[in-house]
């Protein structure tokens, strides 16, 4: 009876504990969905406090965005006449439509934030050095794609918020020297934001950009393994002295090299420190990923329950809302633009070029070039805030803080007529019709 109950419990809870290391490894390799994990993962890579699992979190947010996004596509109509009202229907009468839209919105905001934080983490731990420079560049492109995905999605509700945020955003693009007008024209499919802009943004948002993210994400993940796992394991990843190389063990998942003496890149990448401190990906990595996913999923749902995605009045090109703001992650650019705009008597020199193009352009180029300019010792890789990297970490932190502060000012303190208000100060009431 007792054994039966135990068996029933086992069956119900569907627990699986591999009987041997081989079974654990095979479980990973033989599974289509799991095979891109290494069979074993170093214990240090699991730590919460090294990576904060920010990459995994952004991947799960992307998953949530894909699922909710595909469901939303069944109800959304990308037409200037129907878009706004189809969103109203999604909010009001589509089954769980409010949840889909709120979750999609929150996951999108969080993804921008988490991808940015992931970049900070990689910089502060020096994990962009040496062979990881390529993945740093891929990551930068992924960051830009994330911003573009969010920005293209911003227009789709076709409400005042969407219309004017994209107006502000594409007007910044116009400030690019020489090609500015053309870039804006190609992006909008015309000189004004209308039907052609909506369709372009829609196709970019649901096909082109997600596909690009997917391809680059796969490459990003593959590179992580190729480059030797998380940088935190690097100190142990130094090539093993020849003397310590052991003959291959039967039944281990080595590559072709397994049949000859020596270790391959794969074996080193998979478990540089030998069996001692590595754990089988299944179930340990898997379980942790489930935990991270559950946490991300719950947080997006709770946020969706607390606060809904905004939907303002239907887009009206002849009525500018007050204040008209870019999406929050571009507000630091809008702030820079406002600050660098020079007014002298009648003459106004728009800050669009300096604040909107030059400053972010310089930051981007600097970020891309930095792995190749960085001369600090390689031994600092994989550690938070090492003393040797103090100067550059400080500069990087200052830039990040400046961006964060400007975004906060833009979000919380810019009121009607672009006036500054303290967050606790009430904005003046704007006139209504009735």
């Amino acid at each position, binding site marked *: 009876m007792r054994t039966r109950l135990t068996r029933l419990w086992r069956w119900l809870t569907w627990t699986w504990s591999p009987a041997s290391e081989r079974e654990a490894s095979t479980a990973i390799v033989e599974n289509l969905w799991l095979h891109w994990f290494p069979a074993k993962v170093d214990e240090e890579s699991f730590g919460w406090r090294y990576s904060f699992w920010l990459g995994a979190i952004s991947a799960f947010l992307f998953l949530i965005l894909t699922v909710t996004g595909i469901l939303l596509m069944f109800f959304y109509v990308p037409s200037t006449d129907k878009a706004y009202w189809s969103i109203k229907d999604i909010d009001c009468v589509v089954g769980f439509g409010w949840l889909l839209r709120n979750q999609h919105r929150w996951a999108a905001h969080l993804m921008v934030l988490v991808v940015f934080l992931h970049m900070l983490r990689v910089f502060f731990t020096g994990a962009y050095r040496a062979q990881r420079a390529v993945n740093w560049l891929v990551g930068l492109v992924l960051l830009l794609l994330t911003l573009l995905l969010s920005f293209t999605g911003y227009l789709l509700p076709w409400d005042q918020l969407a219309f004017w945020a994209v107006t502000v955003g594409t007007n910044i693009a116009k400030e690019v020297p020489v090609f500015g007008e053309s870039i804006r024209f190609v992006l909008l499919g015309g000189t004004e934001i209308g039907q052609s802009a909506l369709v372009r943004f829609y196709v970019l948002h649901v096909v082109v950009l997600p596909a690009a993210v997917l391809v680059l994400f796969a490459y990003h993940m593959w590179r992580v393994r190729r480059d030797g796992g998380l940088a935190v394991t690097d100190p142990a990843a130094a090539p093993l002295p020849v003397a310590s190389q052991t003959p291959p063990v039967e039944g281990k998942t080595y590559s072709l090299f397994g049949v000859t003496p020596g270790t391959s890149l794969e074996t080193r990448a998979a478990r540089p420190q030998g069996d001692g401190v590595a754990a089988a990906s299944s179930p*340990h990595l898997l379980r942790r990923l489930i935990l991270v996913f559950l946490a991300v999923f719950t947080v997006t*749902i709770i946020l969706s329950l607390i606060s809904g995605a905004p939907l303002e009045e239907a887009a009206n090109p002849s009525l500018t809302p007050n204040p008209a703001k870019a999406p929050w992650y571009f507000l630091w650019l809008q702030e820079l633009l406002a600050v660098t705009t020079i007014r002298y008597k009648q003459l106004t020199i728009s800050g669009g070029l300096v604040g909107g193009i030059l400053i972010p352009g310089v930051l981007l180029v600097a970020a891309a070039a930095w792995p190749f300019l960085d001369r600090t010792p390689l031994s600092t890789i994989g550690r938070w805030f090492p003393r040797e990297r103090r100067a550059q970490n400080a500069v990087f932190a200052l830039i990040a803080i400046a961006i964060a502060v400007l975004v906060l000012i833009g979000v919380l303190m810019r009121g009607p007529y672009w006036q500054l208000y303290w967050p606790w100060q009430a904005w003046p009431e704007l006139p209504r019709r009735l």
Partner: protein
Amino acid sequence: MHRSFAPNRDFWPLLVASIASLIAVLVVAYREYTPEWHRQQEAFRRYLRTRGAFAAAAAVPDNVEQIWLPALDRVDRCISCHVNYDGSISTLPDLPPLYRPHPDLPYMAKHPFPTFGCTSCHGGQGYATDEAGAHGLVKHWDDPLLTTALAAQYGLARAQLMEIKCNTCHRPDDTTPGMDLINMGKEIFAKKRCVSCHGLEGGGGLGSSDLTYDGDNNPELLPFSAVEGEKTALNWQIQHFESPQKIVERSGMPNYRLNEEQAKALSLLMLSWRRISFPPQYVPAARKRPPAIQPVVREVPAPPPATGAPAEQGRYVFENRGCNTCHRVGGGPLIGPDLAGVTQRRDERWLATWLKDPAAVVAKDEKLQTWTHEFGDIIMPDQNLNDEEIKALIAYMRQFPG
């Protein structure tokens, strides 16, 4: 032999995360399956059962109910809570307001529910399925439900405020039964010759703003500094009509000394003029008065009445062609100068050229340009007067020495 993770190291975090996500999903399900309209329909069913109307209770739907108006590109889900709107469920006397059928008012026959829905007349947000949203008492919905309380803020009855909605379609009418206040507004609008200065529907004067879609103007662009009470476009309109110069400093609009009711009538008329498109079958046959007063601007002018002395004819022209909107004879300048003694100050032949084409005269005369500046650079509009009318006007002016 090998150091590994304790198998259950993540047990507690996993348990907490699982329970938290389960609770979150349950809360989502609760919110999805207990919408406001569902509770309202339940309550109505219970109410009917307590009054013994079991058949009626069974007829109460358990759905989102809606009137779909494809012609108006709109859907009105008001009837999800106001399920008995057409009395098809219950006709019991003294039903609570929410369950009461719509009163059978005289114009209901011409405005049936399946064609007009609810929001065409009442305002509100037809798409929404919760009370606050549907009544439009939320941010970002500029067409709130026109309630008694809202009307009372302006000292109006609800039906009077709703005339704004009627006039969406009834705009071409001179008078429409039941739209007393806006009818009054239209009458004042015609009598005061507002189109002498204001543009309207492709015609009208060029001296001031175009009023064709005045109701669509962004309220934020109105000067509210002198407006008392809430900052709303309707309040602005009312107080501006009562005293234009108090609301807009140095406004060129004459103070017509309108009483409160007249000011409200005109204000409602202004707010009703919006760019709202609807299909032709919604356009009512316009009730036009026989033209008692000829339209004046950009039209071939009607000859002055043949009867009476030239001076008498001139008085008619002065009072009916918009001159007295800006000019007074004695009593000081208004928008334009006081005309008492004008025939002494000016050569009569000059006056005739002036009346023929004021802009041409000003263009040639620098002294006149400086003088026009004193009157806010408003050049007198060309009123399309014919020679006879001009002669009559001058004859009329001769009677007033400076």
